[in-house]
């Protein structure tokens, strides 16, 4: 290579680069950043190289950087002369041959093609690729890229980072050349100031001002330093910038060197980034060969050179004074400021330190001017910022967005929302110096000021998304553990304060904490923040202070209830399944017992945890399935069907009486206390069962004629046969529970009477009022609420519904109503305003409904019900909806369109949700929430009236069976504690010998699925659809359990 010394040789390099970027033959670029390599990009590259060689193809191969869409790696781009550049995704080495074959014939494999680029704005130049492939979307139409503005990442993934010519071809070093020729250095500093460029390392100090300080310092041996010690866990934009486009960094630094009169520069890179070090070293060598670095930059007589220094794994070295100490060969301990590095930095010389990403903005500003730069971003935060979107989010990767973009755009529009069916609850910005921002604040614009107001910081731009499976106490603990171990130990607040804070947080995650410590933690955090020497200590408490502010209830859960809802703090849970179960069933125990053939012991284990195991074995929403660790290997253990098998095997057999006696033997001695339960639904039955076992006298008051609540009256026979439920109720009755049917609380027996006659009362009357939709035509005949319909069918008073039925809603009641209508000989159509995946109903039930012939019509909102003059229903008119903006539940809001359609029908079932009976609630005199549900203490379930407890749907609003039962169980425990003054609940469940269910290695077999009736058979009768596991299946399924309850 010959040095570039004039415009002629500069242009020659540019043409050479262009010939590589757009050769006469097709070019294939493989994304070879570290992410790409981690996904197999090297194998892909090798496969291409070998195939090209073997077949002697005239196709050029290049290793390019990363295009940012990490979740789609390996990414490959293909350019056929005259055509757009096409991005292929998820390319494997096995695809190489067919890609080459297609490209050779001018085609692109359609299954791999993701999007196309017809023209690319490198900011420093525009590169036209060509038009064509009309079937492919433009890159900017892909949700992940939509709205991104690539200034910093302008070259990443498109050019070869190892080839300076390609960089020059896309306008590289042109800004430097211009600055050198203009030779008005002070103008450039003014431009950087006017562009309002702020430090991208996190603190956001004005870059132009820093440069001005350095320019004014007259010491001849001053320094420029690039801080590439990117240590924030969760942030990797600097790595990617250097790996994909190292010359942009050099160009920014050289410009700064010239305009501030500095001749020596250092890049301090993390040693954990070997590829970045390698590419940067290569870039520096090439720049020296071209005379872009060295004694006379671009032949203009300016001296400038760059050295690389590798860090050695110390987070604190990201702090500028610590970084300087490290460069000087000392431990990286920060020094007090002043003196600031601008006055006394490396070796006592004036030093200017900027973050990697800051440097990438320099060439564009120098070339296009400050006015162009400030067009992007918000008023006080100009330009863009690169963020790494990682954690529990579907589309992971690097995104460059204008500053001021709302958080929810990142999370939902670009990120595509949560992983699987988990809902997102927070995003952590700014790494260990930042904070956690809750879902409710996702409207927040992301810029320096707004994030600071929320107690977080922009930091280096890491965005780690947390979902319901992440525990915020654990996250706070995690960050403190990190900063604690990275604290340099120089100043007391950070060294000792973080140690104490970690102690407290460790206690919380182990269930050993109290409210006084919570206050202490807050005080400690403020002290550390206000008195530490450097940025590490000053910001280290942010993750704790923000979680305390926004997630206080999670701390309360850990401290008061000793529970970690996310199931992360394993000292607080037996196993993930137990933790997720509203009844906290000891699932590993019954699986272990059944595996050893101990069916009766297994039943005892099950029934003591869950008095309705056969019913819940059929209708539970099975949250355990979502938390099972086996899920990460193949599929969750089918816990629900196993406990159904265990329950059925006893309840429906002649062992019933013997087992009932065995359970009754566990009853504690009579206490002489009288308790009442209002409502014999799942919550009430559960509370009654435990109160009886605890030795209390229990009377259940129920308005209907039989027990079971929604289980009996809302869940159809084909899902839960009544004779199964009856056995469970019988078992509860034999524990000594008395039932008073036809006795609605308030009208037949008043709260006052209950208060007088009983020592404690549990209110669990459920939500039996169907929400009414305000829809023209609801007054017509044959418009019926789902609950009323299902209840009528269950009690035998409704036997027909019409020939064609439309069901409005998407919950379990809607699906149950539609399938029941089908069994009455009707055609059924479910009309739902959102999409299938957003239906609250249990997925298996929706699938079953569809198999049976229920029609599903999505994105349809009811408009009006059309009747005939006789008052009969003729049709349901619907407005088609489209999905609009994301709401705060992470779902997109349905927005009505102008399109109206008709569903011909002669009956309409409304299943839009159930609410509490407001007349009852208001009449009770208890404190209520706006929606009519009772206000209770979150931990004790006490209402505003002494002695009165409440649980189930009356406090949560319509929910599901298992959640209601969980409240019933908790209420019984708390009522007993209040009545007896001691904690006795755990006495009920003891006596199992752990050696009888010892852990054994899990088997590799697949998840066992219960047999089902054929769809055609199902609709002819009320026969139960899911037949259940066989003995062999159930036993095999038990062997799949990984036994998370066993601790080393």
């Amino acid at each position, binding site marked *: 290579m010959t040095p570039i010394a004039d415009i002629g040789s500069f242009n020659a390099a540019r043409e050479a680069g262009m010939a590589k970027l757009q050769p006469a033959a097709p070019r294939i670029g493989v994304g070879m950043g570290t992410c790409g390599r981690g*996904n197999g990009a090297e194998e892909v590259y090798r496969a291409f190289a070998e195939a090209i060689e073997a077949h002697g193809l005239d196709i050029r191969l290049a290793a390019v950087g990363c295009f940012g869409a990490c979740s789609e790696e390996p990414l490959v781009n293909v350019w056929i002369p005259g055509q757009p550049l096409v991005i292929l995704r998820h390319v494997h080495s096995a695809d190489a041959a067919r890609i080459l074959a297609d490209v050779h014939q001018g085609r692109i494999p359609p299954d791999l093609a993701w999007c196309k680029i017809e023209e690319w704005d490198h900011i420093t130049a525009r590169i036209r690729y060509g038009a064509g492939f009309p079937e492919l979307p433009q890159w900017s139409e892909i949700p992940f890229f939509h709205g991104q503005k690539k200034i910093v990442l302008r070259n990443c993934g498109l050019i070869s980072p190892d080839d300076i010519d390609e960089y020059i071809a896309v306008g590289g070093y042109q800004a430097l050349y211009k600055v050198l020729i203009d030779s008005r250095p002070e103008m450039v500093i003014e431009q950087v100031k006017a562009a309002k460029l702020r430090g991208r390392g996190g603190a956001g100090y004005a870059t132009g001002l820093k440069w001005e300080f350095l320019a004014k310092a007259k010491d001849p041996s001053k320094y420029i330093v690039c801080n590439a010690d990117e240590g924030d866990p*969760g942030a990797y934009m600097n790595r990617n910038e250097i790996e994909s486009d190292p010359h942009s960094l050099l160009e920014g630094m050289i410009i700064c060197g010239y305009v501030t009169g500095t001749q020596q520069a250092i890049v301090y890179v993390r040693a954990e*980034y070997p590829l970045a070090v390698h590419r940067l070293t290569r870039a520096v060598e090439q720049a020296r060969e071209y005379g872009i670095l060295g004694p006379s930059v671009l032949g203009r007589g300016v001296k400038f050179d760059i050295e690389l220094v590798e860090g050695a794994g110390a987070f604190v070295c990201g702090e500028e004074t610590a970084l300087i100490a*490290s460069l000087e060969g000392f431990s990286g301990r920060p020094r007090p400021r002043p003196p600031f590095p601008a006055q006394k930095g490396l070796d006592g010389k004036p030093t200017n330190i900027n973050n990697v990403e800051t440097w990438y903005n320099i060439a564009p500003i120098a070339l296009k001017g400050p006015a162009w730069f400030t067009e992007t971003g918000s008023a006080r935060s100009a330009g863009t910022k690169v963020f*790494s979107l990682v954690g529990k989010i579907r589309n992971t990767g690097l995104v460059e967005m204008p500053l001021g973009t709302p958080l929810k755009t990142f999370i939902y529009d670009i990120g595509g929302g949560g992983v699987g069916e988990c809902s997102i609850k927070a995003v952590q910005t700014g790494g260990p110096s930042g904070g956690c921002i809750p879902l409710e604040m996702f409207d927040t614009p992301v810029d320096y000021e707004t994030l600071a107001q929320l107690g977080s910081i922009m930091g280096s731009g890491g965005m780690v998304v947390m979902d319901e499976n992440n525990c915020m106490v654990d996250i706070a603990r995690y960050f403190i553990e990190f900063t604690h171990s990275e604290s340099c130990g120089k100043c007391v607040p950070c060294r000792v304060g973080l140690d104490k804070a970690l102690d407290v947080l460790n206690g919380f995650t182990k269930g050993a904490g109290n409210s006084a410590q919570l206050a202490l933690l807050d005080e400690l955090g403020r002290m550390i923040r206000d008195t530490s020497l450097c940025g590490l200590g000053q910001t280290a408490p942010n993750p704790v202070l923000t979680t305390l502010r926004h997630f206080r209830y999670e701390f309360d859960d850990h401290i008061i209830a000793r529970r970690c809802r996310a199931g992360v703090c394993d000292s607080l849970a037996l196993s993930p399944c137990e933790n997720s179960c509203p009844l906290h069933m000891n699932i590993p125990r019954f699986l272990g017992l059944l595996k050893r053939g101990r069916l009766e012991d297994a039943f005892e284990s099950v029934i003591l945890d869950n008095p309705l195991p056969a019913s819940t074995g059929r209708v539970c929403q099975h949250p355990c399935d979502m938390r099972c660790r086996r899920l990460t290997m193949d599929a969750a253990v089918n816990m629900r069907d196993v406990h159904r098998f265990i329950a059925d095997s006893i309840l429906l057999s002649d062992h019933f009486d013997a087992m009932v006696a065995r359970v009754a033997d566990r009853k504690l001695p009579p206490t002489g206390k009288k308790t009442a339960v209002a409502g014999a639904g799942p919550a009430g039955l559960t509370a009654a069962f435990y109160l009886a076992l605890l030795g209390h006298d229990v009377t259940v008051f129920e308005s209907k004629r039989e027990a079971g609540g929604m289980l009996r009256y809302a869940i159809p026979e084909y899902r839960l046969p009544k004779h199964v439920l009856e056995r469970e109720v019988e078992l509860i009755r034999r524990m000594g529970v008395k039932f008073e049917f036809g006795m609605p609380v308030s009208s037949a027996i008043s709260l006052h009477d209950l208060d007088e006659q009983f020592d404690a009362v549990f209110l669990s009357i459920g939500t039996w009022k169907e929400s009414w939709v305000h829809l023209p035509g609801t007054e017509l005949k044959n418009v019926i609420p789902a609950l009323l319909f299902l209840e009528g069918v269950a009690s035998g008073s409704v036997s027909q519904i019409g020939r064609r039925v439309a069901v409005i809603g998407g919950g379990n009641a809607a699906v149950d109503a539609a399938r029941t209508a089908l069994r009455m000989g009707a055609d059924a159509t479910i009309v739902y305003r959102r999409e299938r995946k957003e239906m609250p109903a249990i997925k298996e039930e929706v699938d079953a409904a569809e198999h049976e012939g229920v029609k599903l019509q999505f994105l349809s909102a009811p408009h009006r019900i059309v009747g005939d003059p006789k008052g009969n229903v003729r049709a349901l008119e619907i407005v088609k909806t489209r999905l609009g903006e994301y709401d705060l539940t992470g779902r997109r809001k349905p927005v009505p369109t102008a399109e109206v359609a008709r569903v011909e029908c002669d009956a309409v079932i409304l299943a839009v949700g159930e609410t509490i009976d407001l007349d009852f609630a208001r009449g009770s005199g208890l404190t209520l929430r706006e929606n009519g549900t009772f206000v209770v203490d979150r931990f004790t379930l006490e209402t505003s009236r002494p002695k009165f407890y409440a649980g189930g749907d009356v406090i949560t609003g319509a929910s599901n069976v298992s959640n209601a039962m969980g409240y019933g169980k908790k209420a019984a425990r708390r009522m007993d504690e209040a009545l007896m003054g001691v904690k006795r609940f755990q006495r009920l469940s003891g006596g199992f010998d752990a050696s009888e269910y010892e852990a054994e290695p899990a088997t590799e077999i697949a998840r066992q699925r219960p047999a089902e009736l054929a769809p055609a058979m199902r609709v002819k009768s009320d026969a139960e659809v899911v037949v259940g596991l066989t003995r062999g299946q159930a036993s095999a399924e038990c062997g799949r359990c990984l036994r998370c309850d066993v601790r080393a």
Partner: protein
Amino acid sequence: MTLPTAVTPGKPDPEKCAFIDGVIARSTGRPGSLLGILEAVQENNPRKYLCSSELRYIAAKTNTPLSQIFSVTTFYALFNLEPQGDHTIYICRGTACHARGSRNLLESLRLDLGIKEAPDEGGADKLTLTTPDGKFTIRTVACFGQCALAPVVELDHRICGHLNERALAREVDALRQENHQ
């Protein structure tokens, strides 16, 4: 903090001395030279650590107080003062990896390799555990910057992303097989 267990008195062998001399000659006068020298010497050691004799030799040759050398080698996570195993497995404990279950990986790996002592609290950083037979070393790293592949494990310099416990166990088995051959 670990201090060298094998205090080897005297000078390193002549070959090592020559190597160290060469490294020092190349780096003297450059900023950050001490870190670079220590990194190069450690990399040159077959057991990837800095032994006491090497440290003393570097101190003498660079005219650096031995206390400063110890301060630096105990401060930075990269330096090892104990011999490392044949295979080094790094578990990334970055935020994204943590959120995606890297603590479980660390725990299962520790059990798999039969390392008894449990790290205090799941070791966010700076954890080094070597099996008694010297075959494996488990280390944690603050963040690899491979967050999109979380959870990430590096096995002998090879990055593996999206690992679960079973896949990690398989990878470790493969390394064991290598040992046997």
